[in-house]
């Protein structure tokens, strides 16, 4: 055993882990996978899609592989920058698996499903342990990028708090016991045809699971299948039904749109297709030359979104005004609506006018997007406007829904609860989700649950719902089990496991097959389903290719032209009383499912920069009126229910509107997620899932400390984020440059500039493309083994993110302009941090990197003091978790884990550079442009980050640095940063500019 080599790594059952990892060598289990890895077409594809040796596919190898040969040794992969050398053991395979070259990671294509939509990803695997998620370049919903939640989901796989054993009324049991228990329960059912059986799932986009459940319903005709998910798209579907009489899936062709109107939509960062939409949007914001025409985005919203932040014009309206505004705009576009009595403010009137003109001027090239949380009417209006503007089929495309069975989930849950209360339900299988926590406050799911004789819950965690169920079944993580799912456009991805379930989890497929009492492995279930779908041709090749590519070719749903049945009803004449309450999914923990994910908890929320908490977001004016400071606890009363929440003042929030994010205040989330934040579901009603008016707010004497990572919101008049309008750019192409500055801000110096032969790495960040979505932050944390420090440490300013997204406001507090600026190590050529280090722990590499040598660092923190960008982070305590064995499996073996007392910072992913260099050298060639892709760059949905060799004039990054918009941060200090920015452009509508 390797205990001796691992101080503090006790309490792990090595034998067990060995067995599990050995399991994955089972022949039939891996047959498909080693084909994935080794088949010629795979190799061919790999080389077609990427320059040889591109980082996605053969990621850096490190000497750490000694330690990864067996799960047992993996815990050692948690390296530390201390100098002790324990004598340790080398534990080889007994029989080496074919596809594995010790020390070389493999990449597998799979899919991650969230909120009723799948997205294709590639997962890096080191000797059988997944360590990093990348986007799948072939997948339409990813195009190689990912969002923050997907990046962070890999932490969930290794979460030590995951449920690890089948529980029967709280006592450990077995899967087989459950299966037989279920069987007897079904036989003993009093109602005919399984009438007492109910199945509750989240939104199902897995064709296989849907087919299985249909089969179950066929077997038990009287049984019911319900779907519920707190962040559902009910209103979207309802809107579509109003417009077309049927549920359709709406796809936006953002890049085809010159003018975009967002009605409270955050389509750039959340919801199906967001990653794709961000890419398309950015492609229309890049001013290659001053003459390039940019698209124009209008945002009308009540609570600020990142999409609103990207808008050229942003109109703040009260939530219920939004529908009126949409109506007004529709009327102005000549769409006839039932009675319309709206008294717009002068500004609103001006807006309606300007928008109508602009839209009308771009028929077929405009786009109106309604937010997922907006009322069906708003969606109906959006459809109507797009139709009137002849956008259908051009910027808006319809297909059949991607949900296998689109239902109104609120209604569905309602029925289920009614049945339960009526005692009609004898057997309830909850496959995923956490309804006890997420059900609306006026839907007594928990009480009703007690009336059910047999209730089982399949979930990753032993959560609030599990506590009330007879059976708790550990669920297999996305990376542990077979499944499939549809992307925003219907494209099907096969979800294949990267590792055998660490805690013996099962998938919904396996539960369903237990119901059907045909026990098959998840692999067979999924494969057989698709085999059955295949009429002709050689299934085997198709299947293999599907696994290789991470998607089934041409499985995207065909575009259709639904017939218009829309009749726009009269505006509901409700006089809004009191304040408005708005619910939104949390940008980090979503609906609460990620509550125990430390990475996401500590991820500064894009606009508030809050971590580890949610808060009642309110406008500065309202706060002033009520005399409320950020952090003061206020008492919210809505629909007769009360909730105390800390207030947070958010510029750009509609006055009189309070926004609460879902997903906090959990009681049984795990060590990280329990008991933090406030539970917004306690105010949420079935009638008003996304909020409504009638909120009353009382101040209290209590205060709570909120950990925000950015205390100052303005640039203090400093020229940090440089901006201009497209017009000004045309007039003054070099407005972004410092006066008398040529290129990266070279100041006169007594010392001769250092020459860099060979490679000189540099980065350019396009502030026109950056939405501030945080994907880069999560990617960096995952790639570089960054620790989680906890709320207490964030409160004193010790967060450890190597890349942070600074958010500044410009203009008035009520409707300010929001700008985002990712800040990472600038890799200054005249790095101020270096000369002050007494031990030379940070010096320059021959390729111009500002190396940080953890094992030499003695921790004087002088470098950080002298860093004008404050991108260095210090391990004030032992932040890296070296005690939890499962987390050691998560580590990137090619990056040293930093120990207490050591400074750390962004290295431009030097491990990827080194691997590329070795690859290039072994093939006797140079590193090609685009061969080294940093983690942040790879993840960025809008491709705002470009990295490469600035000594190569043809490289993409060199071209960007030659761009007139290119400028360096604080170059007057003569730091000569290698990381530079492209100034931000707005493309305002002149009609709205004045005033």
């Amino acid at each position, binding site marked *: 055993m390797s205990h001796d080599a691992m101080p503090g790594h006790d309490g792990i059952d090595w034998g067990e882990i060995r067995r599990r990892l050995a399991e994955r060598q089972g022949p039939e289990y891996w047959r498909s996978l080693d084909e994935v890895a080794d088949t010629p077409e795979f190799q061919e594809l790999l080389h077609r899609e990427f320059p040889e040796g591109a980082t996605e596919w053969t990621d850096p190898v490190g000497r750490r592989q000694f330690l990864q040969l067996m799960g047992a040794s993996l815990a050692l992969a948690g390296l530390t920058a201390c100098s002790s050398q324990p004598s340790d053991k080398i534990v080889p395979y007994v029989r080496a698996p074919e596809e594995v070259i010790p020390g070389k990671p493999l990449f597998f294509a799979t899919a991650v499903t969230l909120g009723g939509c799948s997205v294709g990803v590639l997962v890096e695997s080191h000797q059988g342990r997944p360590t990093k998620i990348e986007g799948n370049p072939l997948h339409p919903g990813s195009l190689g990028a990912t969002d923050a939640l997907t990046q962070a989901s890999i932490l969930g796989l290794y979460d030590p708090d995951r449920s690890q054993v089948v529980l029967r009324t709280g006592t450990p049991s077995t899967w087989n016991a459950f299966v037989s228990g279920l069987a007897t329960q079904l036989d003993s059912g009093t109602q005919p045809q399984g009438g007492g059986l109910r199945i509750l799932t989240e939104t199902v986009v897995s064709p296989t699971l849907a087919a299985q459940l249909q089969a179950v319903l066929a077997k038990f005709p009287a049984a019911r299948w319900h779907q519920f998910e707190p962040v559902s798209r009910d209103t979207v579907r309802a809107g579509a039904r109003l417009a077309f009489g049927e549920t359709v899936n709406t796809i936006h062709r953002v890049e085809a749109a010159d003018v975009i109107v967002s009605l409270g939509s955050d389509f750039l960062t959340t919801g199906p297709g967001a990653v794709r939409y961000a890419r398309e949007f950015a492609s229309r914001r890049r001013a290659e030359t001053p003459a390039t025409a940019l698209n124009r985005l209008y945002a009308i919203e009540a609570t600020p979104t990142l999409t609103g932040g990207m808008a050229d014009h942003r109109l703040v309206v009260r939530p219920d005004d939004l529908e009126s505004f949409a109506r007004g705009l529709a009327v102005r576009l000549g769409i006839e609506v039932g009675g319309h009595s709206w008294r717009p403010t002068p500004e609103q009137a001006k807006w309606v006018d300007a928008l109508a003109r602009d839209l009308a001027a771009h028929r077929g090239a405009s786009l109106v997007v309604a937010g997922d949380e907006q009322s069906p009417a708003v969606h109906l209006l959006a459809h109507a406007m797009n139709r009137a503007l002849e956008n259908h089929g051009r910027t808006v495309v319809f297909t059949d829904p991607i949900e296998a069975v689109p239902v109104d989930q609120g209604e569905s849950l309602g029925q289920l609860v009614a049945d339960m209360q009526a005692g009609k339900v004898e057997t309830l299988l909850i496959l995923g989700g956490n309804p006890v926590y997420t059900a609306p406050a006026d839907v007594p799911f928990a009480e009703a649950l007690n009336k059910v004789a047999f209730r089982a819950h399949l979930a990753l965690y032993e959560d609030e719902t599990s506590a009330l169920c007879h059976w708790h079944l550990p669920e297999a993580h996305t990376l542990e089990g077979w499944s499939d799912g549809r992307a925003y456009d219907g494209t099907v991805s096969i979800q294949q496991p990267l590792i055998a379930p660490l805690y013996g989890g099962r998938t919904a497929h396996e539960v369903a097959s237990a119901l059907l009492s045909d026990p098959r492995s998840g692999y067979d279930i999924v494969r057989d389903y698709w085999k059955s779908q295949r009429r002709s041709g050689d299934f085997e090749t198709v299947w293999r290719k599907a696994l290789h590519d991470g998607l089934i070719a041409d499985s995207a749903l065909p575009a259709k032209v639904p017939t218009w049945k829309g009749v726009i009803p009269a505006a509901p004449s409700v006089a809004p009383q009191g304040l408005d309450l708005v619910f939104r999914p949390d940008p980090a923990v979503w609906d609460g499912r990620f509550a125990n994910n430390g990475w996401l908890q500590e991820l500064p929320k894009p606009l508030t920069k809050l971590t580890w908490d949610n808060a009642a977001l309110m406008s500065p004016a309202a706060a002033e009126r009520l005399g409320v400071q950020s952090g003061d606890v206020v008492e919210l009363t809505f629909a007769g229910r009360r909730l105390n929440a800390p207030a947070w003042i958010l510029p750009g929030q509609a006055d009189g509107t309070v926004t609460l994010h879902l997903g906090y205040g959990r009681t049984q989330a795990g060590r990280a997620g329990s008991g933090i934040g406030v539970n917004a579901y306690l105010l949420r009603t079935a009638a008003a899932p996304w909020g409504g008016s009638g909120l009353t707010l009382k101040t209290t004497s209590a205060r709570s400390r909120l950990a925000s990572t950015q205390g100052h919101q303005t640039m203090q008049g*400093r020229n940090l984020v440089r901006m201009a309008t497209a017009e000004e750019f045309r007039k003054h192409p070099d407005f972004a440059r410092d006066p008398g500055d040529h290129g990266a801000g070279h100041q006169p110096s007594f010392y001769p500039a250092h020459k860099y032969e060979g490679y000189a790495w540099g980065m350019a960040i396009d502030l026109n493309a950056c939405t501030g979505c945080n994907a880069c932050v999560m990617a960096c944390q995952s790639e570089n083994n960054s620790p989680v420090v906890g709320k207490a440490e964030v409160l004193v300013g010790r967060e450890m993110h190597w890349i942070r997204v600074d958010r500044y406001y410009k203009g008035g507090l009520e409707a300010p302009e929001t700008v985002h600026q990712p800040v990472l190590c600038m890799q200054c050529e005249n790095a101020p941090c270096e000369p002050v280090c007494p031990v030379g722990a940070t010096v320059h590499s021959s390729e111009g990197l500002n190396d940080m040598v953890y094992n030499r660092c003695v921790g004087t923190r002088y470098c950080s003091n002298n860093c004008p960008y404050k991108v260095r982070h210090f*391990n004030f305590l*032992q932040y890296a978790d070296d005690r939890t064995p499962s987390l050691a499996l998560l580590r990137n073996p090619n990056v040293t884990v930093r120990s207490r007392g050591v400074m750390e910072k962004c290295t431009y992913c030097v491990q990827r550079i080194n691997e590329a260099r070795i690859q290039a050298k072994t093939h006797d060639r140079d590193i090609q442009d685009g061969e080294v892709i940093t983690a942040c760059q790879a993840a960025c949905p809008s491709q705002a980050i470009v990295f490469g060799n600035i000594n190569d004039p043809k490289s993409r990054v060199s071209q960007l640095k030659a761009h007139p918009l290119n400028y360096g941060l604080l170059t007057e200090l003569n730091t000569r940063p290698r990381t530079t920015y492209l100034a931000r452009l707005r493309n305002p509508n002149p009609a709205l500019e004045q005033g």
Partner: protein
Amino acid sequence: MATHPETGPGMPSTPIVTPGYTYASVTDKISVIVLSGTTPLSWFAGFLIAFGLLQALLLGIGWTVVFGLGTWGINIPVGWGFAIVNFVWWIGIGHAGTLISAILLLLRQQWRTSINRFAEAMTLFAVSCAGLFPLLHMGRPWFGYWMFPYPSTMAIWPQTRSPLVWDVFAVSTYATVSLLFWYVGLIPDLATLRDRAKARALKIGYGMLALGWRGSAQHWHRYETAYLLLAGLATPLVLSVHTVVSFDFATSLVPGWHTTIFPPYFVAGAIYSGFAMVLTLTIPIRWLYRLDDFITMRHLRNMANVMLATGLMVAYGYLMEIFFAWYSGNPFEMFMMLNRMTGPYGPFYWALICCNILVPQLLWSERVKANVPLLFLIALVVNVGMWLERFVIVITSLHRDFLPSAWGMYYPTWVDWAIFVGSIGLFLTMLFLFIRVLPMISIFEMRTILPSPKPRPAAAPGAGPAGD
């Protein structure tokens, strides 16, 4: 011959030593403090308090080493906190001793004679307190030896462009030279103690330290040369030390640190705080040990004058900082200065202006300088003021620098306080031990300023051998 007390026009009436003392009586009065078997209760009281405070230091250090720097208030952006503030403060205090011994010696200021031994001791203890902090504030203090050049298996060396390495050399050199200077001064007095001690153990103890000194004319001759050379070397050294310390800040690019005026202004501040500390300590001890005859009002007055002078230089430094911030036109500098005065730490700035500039103006008045308790109070205030100055320089400059997104605040923790207070305990403990076992006034130098007992009829009172 330098054996006459200073008299004549221009010299204040109060002499350096109250008349009437002889070689013998001076020798006896000073050495008895050390050699007499009885120790005053006040000494025990003081020592116990000091020793108690010292425990706080040990606790603080233990806590830091076990749990890490996270137990301090520091963060990003404020990477340096109390540790560096205390370091600079102590180093500053450590300047008075060498200054009095060396510079005043070169300037032939005889009044230094009765205070230099004591001041040098104080210097040593202050420097050893200061020396603690650079080590403590490291994230991995157990690798502190990497700062010294030695042929390591890593084949790398310290990075000597870093002011921190300059510090290492400057402070260790300063400590060594001060120690040598102090010891050389002690040798003849150790011989005296050797010859006056009754107990054999003491004879041997002091005898070994005295190196067999016997006052030979040739020895004295070389001795004085060496002493003068040391003084000549120590003078530029003492000036360099705080200059180097100021480089820690001046060579950085942090607004509020990056200033050319720092070296002179730090040195002046150092002398200022040094003399303040000497006054703070001599006044009570002079009273406790009835040393008014040797440490006369003349001494207190002179020290007060030095304080006044250096205080004004420091004030000039403050003014220049403000002026340059404005004159440079550098928005970051301007903002820093504004933030220093009106920002969250503004009160500290104004408190320091009060302590270091306003209060000491009282010293213009001869009446104040004649009022010992008041003098003591002023010295105390200046000590506090100088600590505040370092706090303001370190914290306010760091907490709001270039990117507003990265701004932060600094709040010390109990560990910070424990280590700070504890270092004072360490300082006092060493001081109490010193005055118990070694002559706190240089006996042989006192003899040099006494009138010679002419063997002619009119012998000075008390002259002649003590009856034996």
